[in-house]
């Protein structure tokens, strides 16, 4: 917006100043919980009970972080949430990759290789985006039982993939609709087949929507609690479930600093993903099409 022409009258400047003031206030208000969490997580317990929420830490310490990571009790076991943190990765990474890949192929097939009923398939997929998680808990548990993968990582990955495909398909379908069909026609005439066209023509221009899909799926699956608590055993729990257990396990004094540190640890990957790729996320969501 640097090239908006506007005369700088005093009134205009005042208006600007007010606008920025309001925006900054809103931003501060928004970031406050995070700041409080961060501050609390580096305070010793004594300071927490003595001071207020907003008082700055006097003797910052990483003790609570270490404890949350390696020693805090989550239910019966007391080995922190570190292990569950890696559990989450072991679930999220394959689930994101698989659901994004399938979503991309679906979107490609639904737009560039239309078949009888492809619109219906897409409508049903879209419907899948609106199914509440709770509805499928029981049937899903039964299915996982039949498949012999209940309470396993594979089971959780499958659940997340199945649920994620509706969204990833939607993303890729809407993106590929904007890519001219002639590109595919030209490649067909050039002698390329279904996968070759996808790999050589479509995929190289799909970066924006891949970023969208990956971020979306990553945060959805990482932050999932319901499936995690329903379909995991104690050794396959994701970090969200472990965090909940940690906070709910009472051993005398409530260690707010450890709780906060654990919460920060659990939220960190999604934060990092947003900071690193958020720019592309917005860009990808708004990118209508790639002009041939």
């Amino acid at each position: 917006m640097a090239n908006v022409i506007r005369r700088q009258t005093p009134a205009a400047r005042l208006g600007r100043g007010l606008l920025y003031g309001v925006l900054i206030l809103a931003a501060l208000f928004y970031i406050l919980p995070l700041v409080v969490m961060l501050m609390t997580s580096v305070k010793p317990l004594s300071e927490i009970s003595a001071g207020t929420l907003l008082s700055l830490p006097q003797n910052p310490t990483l003790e609570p972080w270490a404890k949350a990571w390696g020693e805090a009790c989550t239910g019966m076991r007391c080995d922190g949430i570190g292990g569950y943190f890696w559990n989450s990765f072991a679930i999220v990474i394959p689930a994101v990759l698989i659901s994004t890949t399938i979503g991309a192929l679906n979107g490609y097939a639904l737009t560039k290789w239309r078949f009888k009923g492809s619109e219906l398939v897409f409508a049903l997929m879209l419907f899948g985006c609106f199914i509440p998680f709770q509805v499928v808990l029981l049937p899903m548990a039964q299915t996982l039982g039949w498949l012999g993968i209940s309470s396993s990582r594979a089971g959780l990955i499958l659940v997340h993939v199945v649920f994620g495909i509706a969204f990833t398909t939607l993303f890729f379908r809407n993106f590929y609709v904007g890519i001219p069909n002639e590109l595919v026609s030209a490649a067909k005439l050039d002698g390329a087949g279904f996968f070759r066209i996808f790999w050589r023509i479509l995929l190289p221009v799909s970066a924006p929507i891949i970023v969208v899909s990956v971020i979306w799926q990553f945060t959805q699956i990482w932050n999932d609690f319901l499936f995690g608590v329903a379909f995991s055993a104690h050794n396959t729990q994701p970090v969200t479930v472990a965090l909940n257990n940690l906070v709910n396990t009472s051993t005398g004094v409530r260690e707010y600093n450890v709780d906060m540190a654990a919460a920060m640890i659990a939220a960190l990957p999604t934060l990092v993903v947003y900071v690193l790729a958020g720019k592309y996320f917005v860009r990808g969501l708004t990118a209508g099409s790639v002009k041939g």
Partner: protein
Amino acid sequence: MAALEIHNVRKEFGSEQVLKNVSISIDSGEFLILVGPSGCGKSTLMNAIAGLEPVTSGNIYIDGEDVTWRTPADRDIAMVFQSYALYPSMTVRQNISFGLEMRKVPKAEREQAVERVADLLQITHLLERKPAQLSGGQRQRVAMGRALAREPKVYLFDEPLSNLDAKLRVDMRTEIKKLHQRLGTTIVYVTHDQVEAMTLADCIAVMRDGNILQLGTPDEVYNNPVDMFVAGFMGSPSMNFIRATLEAAGDGYVLRIATPGEDDVLLPWPSERNVAGLVEQLDKPIILGLRPEHFSEEDVRLSEQAEGTLMEAKVSVVEPTGADILLRLPLGEQEITARVGPKCAIAPGERLSLRVDMARAVLFDAETEQRLA
């Protein structure tokens, strides 16, 4: 043997008939141009030839082989799309060689082909660029290059020049003509441009509503149209259609053009162009078709022995185009366009005597719009 034969092809999208029984046959090395108003099914026909859309019924033969149900890749066809459809993530070089790569041509040969085509189209300096870094004309050339890198049995060009500016278009038109003369490959080409159609084609197919109305040489289609649609569609400015009545005069005919408030204009029909069917049209309304260039100034002698017929009218609009002057003038109930030489000194409102070349006039049935003579 026909290089490309389209036999009774129909294409329906749902209940809509987009191609209704299209049959075309062209010989090897011929340049076929498809023209017709927007939405008449030209692109659909191209896609059917290329195998990108299955036909509902009918057959397509290339070099005598029935390819109706073959995949696009197996038909040995190269196509230039209206939108160019260059692969955005590939360089120009990769774009051109992709088709060869897919056909497992060895790398050295691919390189050779790229060089040859780049040389031909003068895009050698662009080979390492991406399509987004090219101008419209350059993209057009790359699109052409991608088709030319292979040596298919048939080239399909769907309005390849429509996105270019007027000057570039003329240049490219000449280049395409030269290319065709050099390569001698069969080409099917869609255009909306009259001049392109007339200058490039060995054969023009005029389409309307999924039908081929006329298939013939540019000369036939222009001078010998089968009906009013073809006559009006080809040529710019288009043919004048003048309401008239056919009357007997001696042993021949004369066309009476009723003019409100003035004497009727009488144009004798050349006796050498009498055809049997005309008798039935006597004293009935009829449509006389005259192209703007069938008029000329009185002092311009028509070629050969033809004298032409003189008529007089008041000029209402004068439009100099540079090369010649277009005059608008009333004739009967309608206003017509006449094309005269650039030297003609006439102002709007003046009366002018024009020579009409009735030997090239055409007659249509006023109801069916079919050609009578």
